[in-house]
């Protein structure tokens, strides 16, 4: 019962954060709404017995990636003005069409989920080790070793790319 209450609170907060991401005008508020969504998702991960992932989500996503966003937003948006006038007309239609698309997409996704054949209740608890660091590490280093090494290469490429892009232009 407690898990149901926590689920609903976290789900509502996640949706509130998501709506904040798409509606707020100030980029810092957008970033904070996204952090709220990420924290709610962390709680939901904990409910789904994904303890290591919950911590990784908060540590890496909410704690590092969003801080990076905030760095750029606070440094770059210091003197930014609202969009110019000739863009106003396209802006109104743009939001409407986007909302329409969103509705269609939502209906399609719901149809895919409801029409599918899987069981609607969760499987058993899976013992104490599902989602723990040990089982995660075992899977990561035995069966999924190649993707792990490839992500190391991706990170290296990202670091090199950022260093090159951030250089002073001579």
């Amino acid at each position, binding site marked *: 019962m407690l898990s149901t209450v926590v689920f609903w609170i976290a789900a509502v907060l996640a949706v509130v954060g998501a709506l904040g991401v798409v509606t707020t005008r100030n980029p810092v508020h957008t970033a904070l709404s996204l952090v709220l969504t990420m924290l709610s998702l962390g709680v939901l991960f904990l409910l789904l017995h*994904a303890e290591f992932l919950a911590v990784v989500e908060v540590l890496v996503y909410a704690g590092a990636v969003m801080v990076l*966003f905030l760095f750029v937003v606070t440094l770059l948006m210091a003197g*930014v003005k609202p969009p110019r006038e000739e863009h106003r007309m396209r802006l109104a239609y743009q939001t409407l069409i986007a909302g329409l698309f969103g509705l269609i*997409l939502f209906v399609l996704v719901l149809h895919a989920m409801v029409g599918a054949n899987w069981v609607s209740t969760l499987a058993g608890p899976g013992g104490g080790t*599902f*989602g723990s660091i040990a089982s995660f590490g075992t899977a990561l280093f035995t069966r999924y070793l190649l993707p792990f090494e490839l992500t190391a290469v991706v990170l290296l490429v990202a670091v090199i790319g950022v260093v090159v892009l951030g250089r002073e232009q001579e």
Partner: protein
Amino acid sequence: MVPIGYYLVLSAVLFVIGGVGVLSRRNPLQMFMSVELMWNAVNLTFVAFARQYLNMAGHIFVFLVITVAAAEVAIGLAIIVMVFRKREHVDVDDLSLMKG
């Protein structure tokens, strides 16, 4: 216990909200954050299914998504900073007006 369907519907809602955000935002940083929201929704789906079938593959995939997302954010922000440095208005539609 909460049935898995609830998690999937929540994930769909977040994904769609993120999609609407990507299409309707003009500030490149806010657009990027909407894309981040879509990734998070997908992560939730993965974790829900991993719990459903007790398969760690879902968790591994989320880990990879988070890692690649972090790398992409780093490079994306570097590009945005480079492109919009010293501008007064930050608007993605301006990119079509750039010369050279």
